[in-house]
């Protein structure tokens, strides 16, 4: 089944012609309407007319998440403010988020891509989708919601948490499809077992869309087996609309990335040069249809690779593998993107702790922050230490939106950290 069969199965040559046409338009608009890009073009001594083939994309400057932050809030807007109908944000490392704008057409386009994704997994109008992602500033829930409504399925905007209510909704409204994070799927499985519920006997589930966190093939199999459903891998990022950038078809072998909307490059993150097809590297995306915020060569920091060859489903848009890792030190807890620097900044603002710290990731729900107390400020009072522990916990919670466990350590306990990576100890097995 297809949502837009013609474009989804378009021949490669025609697709590339379409990409080039749209790339030229995008470059022209970015150059004309966004000072950030016109400055970059001047520095590189290029003009929009220098883009004459898809290969010429290499002449264009990269856009990084820092660029998005520097231009917060309105700097990268390519249309009049009046044309914008939606703002989403993505968490940043210094408290300043990245602002992502949508025009009416952008929302519609993002929803169209979701519709392609959902139909690709066999969804029909009589299906019921329970959306367990966070509604709000994050793109995860809302973009999926709009796409699912476009398809015509019944959407239950449940949001995350309130597990017993989720289960009741799933039973009462005969939910067939879930959209959630892998860690929440595993938690849901635990709760069902504890309540003596049998997913096959007591529910009507057929499939789940899992995204927002990395997870392994083993986890997919485990979730599929427990719920007796098909699990489809989903990829997206707020900077590129949110979910629906790439999605798995029924073959469940890599995610089709909608190349009529995005140009894919896989680069070596060190050199910036393109890697050979099938080799892993950093995913770089250029938007082709975005009105409000065209973005050229966005460094996603996600490591993946192109899966070579044609897919049996008939779609010609190339597939990327599940995300293998990150080129930076970002990690994800409870679906929230967190950078060690955020933790560091909070700790720097707290009196009574030393600079050294460690982050332990026990699961996708729980993290521990270990800090050494400051030798000079120790006054022998346990109440002061308890207050310190509470203060750190609260300040971290309000910064990263996840409540960590905070451990106070004796000075000199933690290894002296040389790189950022050693600050984070990831004990999670995917």
């Amino acid at each position: 089944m297809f949502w837009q069969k013609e474009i989804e199965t378009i021949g490669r040559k025609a697709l590339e012609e379409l990409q080039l046409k749209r790339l030229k338009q995008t470059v022209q608009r970015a150059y004309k309407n966004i000072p950030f890009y016109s400055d970059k073009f001047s520095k590189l001594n290029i003009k929009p007319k220098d883009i004459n083939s898809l290969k010429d994309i290499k002449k264009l400057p990269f856009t990084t998440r820092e660029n998005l932050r520097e231009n917060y809030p309105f700097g990268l807007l390519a249309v009049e403010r009046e044309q914008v109908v939606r703002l989403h944000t993505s968490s940043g490392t210094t408290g300043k988020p990245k602002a992502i704008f949508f025009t009416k057409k952008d929302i519609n386009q993002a929803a169209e891509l979701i519709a392609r994704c959902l139909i690709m997994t066999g969804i029909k109008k009589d299906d019921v989708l329970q959306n367990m992602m966070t509604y709000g500033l994050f793109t995860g829930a809302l973009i999926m919601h709009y796409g699912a409504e476009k398809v015509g399925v019944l959407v239950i905007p449940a949001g995350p948490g309130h597990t017993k209510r989720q289960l009741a909704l799933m039973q009462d409204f005969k939910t067939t499809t879930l959209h959630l994070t892998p860690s929440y799927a595993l938690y849901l499985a635990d709760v069902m077992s504890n309540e003596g519920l049998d997913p096959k006997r007591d529910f009507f589930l057929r499939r789940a869309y899992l995204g927002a966190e990395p997870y392994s093939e083993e986890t997919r199999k485990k979730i599929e087996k427990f719920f007796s459903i098909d699990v489809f891998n989903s990829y997206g990022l707020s900077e590129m609309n949110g979910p629906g950038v790439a999605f798995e078809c029924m073959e469940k072998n890599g995610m089709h990335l909608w190349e009529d909307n995005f140009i894919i490059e896989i680069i070596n993150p060190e050199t910036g040069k393109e890697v050979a097809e099938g080799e892993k590297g950093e995913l770089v995306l250029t938007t082709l249809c975005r009105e409000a915020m065209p973005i050229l060569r966005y460094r996603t920091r996600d490591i993946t690779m192109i899966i070579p060859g044609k897919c049996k489903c008939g779609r010609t848009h190339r597939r990327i593998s599940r995300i293998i890792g990150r080129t930076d030190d970002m990690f994800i807890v409870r679906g929230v993107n967190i950078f060690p620097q955020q933790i560091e900044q909070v700790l720097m603002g707290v009196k009574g702790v030393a600079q050294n710290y460690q982050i332990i990731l026990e699961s996708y729900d729980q993290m521990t922050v270990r800090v050494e107390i400051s030798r000079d400020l120790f006054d022998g009072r346990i109440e002061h230490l308890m207050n310190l522990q509470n203060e750190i916990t609260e300040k971290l919670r309000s910064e990263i939106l996840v409540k960590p466990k905070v451990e106070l350590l004796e000075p000199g306990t933690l290894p002296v950290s040389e790189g950022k990576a050693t600050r984070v100890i990831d004990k999670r097995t995917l």
Partner: protein
Amino acid sequence: MDKLKQISIFSENKPGRLEKITKVLADEGVNILAINIASSNGFGVIKFIVDKCELAYQKLKQKGFTVSLNEVLAIEMVDKPGGLYEVARTLSQKKVNIENAYVFILESRKRAFLIVEVQDIEKAKKLLQYVKLKFYREAEFKKKGKK
């Protein structure tokens, strides 16, 4: 009322910490007169009254422990029913608030001291200047403490 200092040591709540701390004291020939341990949520503070306070403090610090030295009140209690009541009544009359307290006994079953930690030691000492309680005296303490 002579000065009495207490040593406080920060410690993670895990096996072997008290052993390491007391080994330092043992190696230096420091005698422990009283000990108090409070713990919370993964960590604790161990408090000592010792005979060679300054020496113990320096050595512990050298060995890398997180130590702090602060003055406390040491009030003699009569070792009989009502002994603590007498002390508590006087402190409350003078509005001295107890932050933390523990007991040590000098010369088995003869004399007991209540170690009291307060927010502001100088203020507390002033408030307690003329009360009838017997406070710790360094000279007497050292002699008897040694046995």
